[in-house]
């Protein structure tokens, strides 16, 4: 993955399996690969930045939001909340969905007060089986954050979540 050459996210999604489970199958939800989020914008408010720092016990830094808050900005602006995403995959909120892996690339600082334009989509869906977990869908999605419309992304977040599919 390049960090200082080209645009963030140009290299596409990694193909490896972050869960280590073997033998991908076709999921009932494979047709959702390519599902795009509506997209939108979010202006990061100072109190949100402060509360993120407090929640993750980080030392505040003037002029730069904690990079982990990129995750919050992505969901707030993309037009698809966590529950919306669960609804797309017909999954209740208490289904025991787990984060499997997250990757971030940053091209610069996340500045408080910036209105971030965010787009994103689902890029992979695979049915997996783990010895302990049973069947689950490994779903990969991406958020691209831009500090202004049309500019190169300042952050790209790729996330893989494991959605249990008991009895399948």
């Amino acid at each position: 993955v390049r960090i200082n050459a080209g645009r963030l996210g140009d290299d596409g999604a990694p193909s490896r399996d972050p869960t280590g489970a073997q033998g991908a199958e076709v999921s009932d939800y494979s047709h959702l690969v390519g599902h795009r989020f509506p997209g939108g914008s979010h202006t990061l408010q100072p109190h949100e930045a402060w509360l993120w720092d407090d929640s993750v016990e980080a030392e505040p830094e003037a002029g730069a939001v904690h990079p982990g808050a990129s995750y919050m900005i992505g969901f707030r602006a993309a037009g698809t909340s966590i529950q919306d995403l669960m609804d797309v995959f017909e999954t209740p909120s208490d289904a025991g969905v787990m984060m499997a892996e997250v990757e971030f690339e940053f091209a610069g600082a996340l500045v408080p007060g910036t209105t971030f334009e965010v787009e994103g989509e689902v890029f992979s869906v695979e049915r997996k089986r783990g010895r302990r977990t049973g069947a689950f869908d490994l779903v990969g999605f991406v958020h691209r954050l831009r500090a202004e419309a049309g500019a190169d992304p300042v952050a790209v977040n790729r996330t893989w979540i494991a959605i249990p599919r008991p009895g399948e």
Partner: protein
Amino acid sequence: VKGLREGQELEPFVVDPVDPARMKTMALLLDDPNPLHWDAEALRRGGFDERPFNQGPTNMSYLMEMAIRVGGGRTALRRFSVRFLGNVLAGQRLECTGTVKSVDAEAGTAELELMASADGEPVLTGTATVTLP
């Protein structure tokens, strides 16, 4: 890069104990409807004890914070990846540790290997690329 060498251990980042009140704030920040982060009754119904689960983005941010401190600031973090191995529960002692995997003096970057444990059990592994002053 001045001050860092391959194999060097990073200053640990410790959260002790993991605070359930902060999970409620995070649930609002993320608009996360999963009750296992804040509802003791939902935890009982799910067959768990009453200790809420820390959110994944919080756990990964702990590791990020350690990497940021190596780089000397938030803008130093250029790439970060984390794999989630287990749950972090309220009241546990979370310790992040790491080492310098490599240093590229020409590029002014360092690759870090990171991990975190909760009450001694591995819960996260990760890597980070930081630029250094």
